[in-house]
């Protein structure tokens, strides 16, 4: 099993360092559990037409230490529901990273990504050779390799399927 190359467009660029992901749905809405409702609210503060313009496989881009603060799960649930395949950022905050990888959200750390892409560029994220390519401009940047556990979690779809596949014979 290996991670397939992801092809999509840059649906949004969060250029703020230490970005608090709760802003994606708005802090007021963070306790909403209905994903349809959340998705309608997602990105409203950034682009009212976001939901209508996203296609499955698109990604969002982040700056350094993306997900800092006290990240909750609903914002990325909402983005995934809209078809966003993952987040590519300069770097991630560890709490956000761990939480979202366990949900099966594709995350890739790519130092230099902010200089590589503009909104709506076509990109290809190739896990095999570890490169993020901008298909619109021809540029490319290496991505940071995943740990074995994180890669397996993304391959299997998240924490529970990962643990089901790789669990020791003895349990806790």
């Amino acid at each position, binding site marked *: 099993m290996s991670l397939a190359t992801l092809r999509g467009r840059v649906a949004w660029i969060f250029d703020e360092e230490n970005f608090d992901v709760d802003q994606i749905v*708005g802090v007021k809405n963070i306790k909403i559990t209905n994903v349809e409702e959340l998705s309608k609210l997602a990105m409203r503060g950034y682009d009212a037409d976001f939901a209508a313009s996203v296609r499955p496989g698109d990604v969002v881009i982040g700056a350094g230490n993306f997900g*800092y603060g006290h990240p909750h799960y609903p914002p990325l649930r909402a983005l995934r529901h809209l078809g966003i395949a993952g987040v590519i950022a300069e770097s991630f905050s560890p709490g956000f990273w761990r939480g979202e990888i366990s949900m099966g959200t594709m995350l890739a750390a790519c130092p230099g990504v902010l200089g590589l892409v503009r909104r709506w560029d076509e990109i290809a994220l190739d896990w095999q050779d570890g490169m993020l390519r901008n298909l619109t401009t021809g540029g490319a940047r290496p991505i940071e390799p995943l740990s074995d556990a994180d890669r397996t979690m993304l391959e299997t779809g998240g924490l529970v399927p990962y*643990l089901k596949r790789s669990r020791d014979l003895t349990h806790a």
Partner: protein
Amino acid sequence: MGYTLAEKVLARVSGRDHVRAGEEVMAKPDFVVVYDFPGYTDVIFRQMKEDFGIGLLAEPDRFAVFIDHMVPVATAAEEQLHIQTRDWCREQSVPLYERRGIGHQVSAELGYASPGAFVVHFDGHISQLGAFGTLAIGLRRNVLEAFVREHVSLKVPHTTRINLTGALQKGVMARDVFHHIVRVLGPSACRFQVMEVGGPALAGISLEGRQVICGLAMFTGAITGVVNPDALSRAYTDPRARLHLPEVSSDADAEYAAVHDIEISALEPVIVVPPNPANTRNLMDHVGLPMNAGYLGSCASGRLEDLRIAAQILKGRRVRDGFSLHVIPTSQEIMARAAEEGLISTLVEAGAFTSSPSCDYCFGRIAVLSGGQRAMSTGTLNVAGRMGNPDSEIYLCNAAAVAAAAIEGCVADPRKYL
């Protein structure tokens, strides 16, 4: 080249002679500590059974469950969650600690903070056990791994060393030191690393203060914080530790990702302005800003030195009319000591509202703010909505600054009352 404390602990618990930062290991936690909370423990208990077919845990004494949130309950649904937790612990023979205080503090009191031990939780503030030389990491939902198999997968973290030099001025506390570290090094300085704090100034920082610094490590990007054990920490852990492990400290020639020296002699009280925990400012630049409420408590404060300094400031004075001051000791043990010392009566006579320990003041479940209100808080976080309303503002500070604000109804310099 020597090894860091984190490398040594993770070598032991992964059954290896040595490990280096960057290696992936399967590490067996000495203790798995959680508090009951919807979406975490109830889901874990269900998944264990339904997804993994696990009946009983093989080593229940490696686990500890705290009931510290939703204490006391406000709804029947909350009580139902606690009932499920009690039933699960009974069925599993897992120790349950209810109404003893905030679990991150009580787990230190109960010896889960054994020097050299490896502890996991879902909540990142468990990092405060690092004050005792324990490597304690919050895994968020990945803590499920520790419930369904012996080991958790982990990349051995690099360590950034912070040497504190100098001595704290009167009215400046460990809380200020931590936010100063964030101000100097930035909110991603220790990203995915261990924040190791040491240096000559540490001798003047209490164990309680070290708990505060380590407990907030996540806001430097760190996955945990540690202090190498010393005579002060051993005096606390020797009679309490559940595990007596070989002495573990970072070697003098350990390989650090970075080493920073931070001088604290000139440090003044700070205030962390909303909306995020990286916004450290000098408190003096905000003096006079009107405040409606004050919160002294949480796993990042509410300990004896915090209660003592607040009592010293409030003794013979009054909380300003209309200002809501909540002073919540962090554990029953601390509360009993504070009562013996007369701190509780001093605080109450000044007009503070106190209650038994609970996490509920910190995460906006009770004592909430209304839109447009502002609080001075020793809670863990100042993100919007943390105290119940996204249109209110939370300013983080030390315990003395909360007390001073309570007297004046605005940001005030605590040093003039000391």
